[in-house]
């Protein structure tokens, strides 16, 4: 559980990409799973912080995070060679199906974090990574990629917060961009891009991560067109492994009966139509 940091770089204002050597555990990781990181060896902050697995690179795992408080601030100060206490991979990830197309991926802001790993997996790249076939320098150029119709829609406040465009493109995904201020791509929300996209062509599966208001909209739009939609959700976590029942959200089950489910263990990825959105959002 003690893992060595290989790099930790600021890739946009306040946003860091950290690569950690934790291959033994991460080899079996699924897109949508997260790692639980102890940011300080003292009692402040006390609890671990959950971060999604952002990418699989041979022998290593990458996370992408924004500095929002004490824990992430401490993380951002870590250097190559420092050792971190990490548990994971944890949770249930995105449930992808082999032949449904197109796959539409919707990322809002930091929501891009788990979705790059998802795209890697859809394109089969993670299989090569796990087999350690890729060269770190030209990670993707030499790989025989899966040809799948994967459409990635990325939204952020401004141009500088549009992350991973190049990575998705290299994987062979089509990428469309929206910014709130129009500084890059279409002006407006990524949900408008999504509406256009599914109007033109019905999606096979939709995967989304981002602010809750955005997720609720994507969920509603998907429901109107009867498209399967999975979202990755956040909640404040204690244990991260399912014992404390601190991270629950209310969902409705197949039988229509609602109940609490654990974001850390039953999620963080949920079928969007099972989430009771009003309750979820009002409770944050």
């Amino acid at each position, binding site marked *: 559980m003690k893992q060595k940091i290989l790099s930790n770089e600021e890739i946009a204002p306040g946003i860091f990409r950290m690569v950690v050597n934790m291959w033994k555990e991460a080899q079996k990781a699924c897109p949508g799973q997260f790692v639980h990181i102890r940011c300080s060896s003292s009692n402040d902050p006390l609890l671990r912080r959950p971060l999604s697995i952002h990418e699989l690179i041979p022998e290593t795992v990458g996370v992408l995070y924004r500095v929002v408080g004490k824990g992430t601030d401490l993380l951002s100060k870590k250097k190559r060679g420092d050792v971190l206490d990490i548990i994971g991979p944890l949770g249930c990830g995105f449930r992808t199906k082999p032949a449904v197309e197109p796959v539409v991926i919707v990322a809002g802001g930091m929501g891009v974090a788990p979705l790059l790993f998802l795209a890697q997996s859809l394109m089969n790249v993670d299989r090569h990574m796990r087999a350690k076939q890729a060269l770190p320098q030209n990670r993707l150029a030499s790989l025989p990629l899966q040809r799948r119709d994967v459409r990635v829609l990325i939204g952020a406040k401004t141009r500088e917060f549009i992350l991973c465009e190049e990575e998705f493109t290299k994987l062979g995904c089509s990428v469309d961009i929206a910014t709130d201020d129009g500084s890059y791509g279409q002006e407006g929300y990524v949900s408008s891009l999504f509406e256009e996209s599914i109007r033109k062509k019905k999606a096979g599966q939709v995967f989304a991560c981002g602010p809750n208001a955005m997720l609720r909209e994507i969920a509603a739009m998907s429901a109107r067109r009867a498209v399967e939609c999975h979202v990755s959700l956040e*909640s404040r976590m204690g244990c991260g492994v399912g014992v404390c029942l601190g991270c629950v959200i209310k969902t409705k089950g197949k039988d229509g009966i609602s109940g*609490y489910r654990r974001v850390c263990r039953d999620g963080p990825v949920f079928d969007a139509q099972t989430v009771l959105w009003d309750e979820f959002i009002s409770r944050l």
Partner: protein
Amino acid sequence: MRESVDLTTNLAGIRMRNPVMAASGTFGYGEEYASLIDVKKIGAIVLKSVTLKPRDGNVPPRLVETPAGLLNAIGIHNIGVEALKAEKLPGLRDAGTPVIVNIWGENVNEFVKVIEALEDVEGIAGIEVNLSCPNVGGTLFAQDAAAAEGLLENVRKKCALPLIAKLSPQVTDITLIAKACEDGGADAISLINSFPAMAIDVETKRPLLGNVTGGLSGPAIKPIAVKMVWEVSKAVKIPVVGMGGIMSASDAIEFMLAGAKAVAVGTANFVNPRTAEEIVNGIGNYLAKNGFSSVSQIVGVLDAR
């Protein structure tokens, strides 16, 4: 030298390999942590409070972190005693460590029904009676000596297993409640449960917990817990299980010097699932270094002149 140190602890008839237990509500049913740690290395595990019927628990958010502390308002979200018997206890028989079932009810009658449902169930080493959950309604037995004694008497009648009474720190005189539990028939006292507390979001001007208030645990409450363990262990003849903010072997030893025969690790499991295991090793090293041959030799030896 280490080999000669005896960590075995007999807690009111519960025979444990060592005095370090996992606290209720912080270790699930043992299974979730099984892939991360060796449960056999822990003295005993105390399961999440179980009630007669399944309970949904409180509205989220249920957790807030505070300086060196964790504020929780789970609300005894649990699967109910029947599901516990059918789905969890059978698997726990092979856990390789004593399993203590923690019970809760809204009133005496409910407690009695839960204990009746557990009668003759295999694989239970002891019962912990939660008199002190800060996050649910019902009678707060831990704040009323007569009610506490009455509850223990009623549960005692139906229970042949070692019985532990778990107390709340939010009382005027903890020794009165502890003595009442002893008189009611408890075989041991455990303390403390989390301390009633709250936290507010100054931007939204709303409480940070869905339940408004919750219970504070973690290092922030440790000094309070140590004092209460010290007071209670002097006041009663039955053994005391100390808990509240234990993160390390030295924390655990503090509780033992103050009079705890055993200790329980709660919030620290979330921070480092190996905490209990590391504490077991740390206590062993401490005993060896200080020339003790058995862990019982440090219980209550605090020199408070």
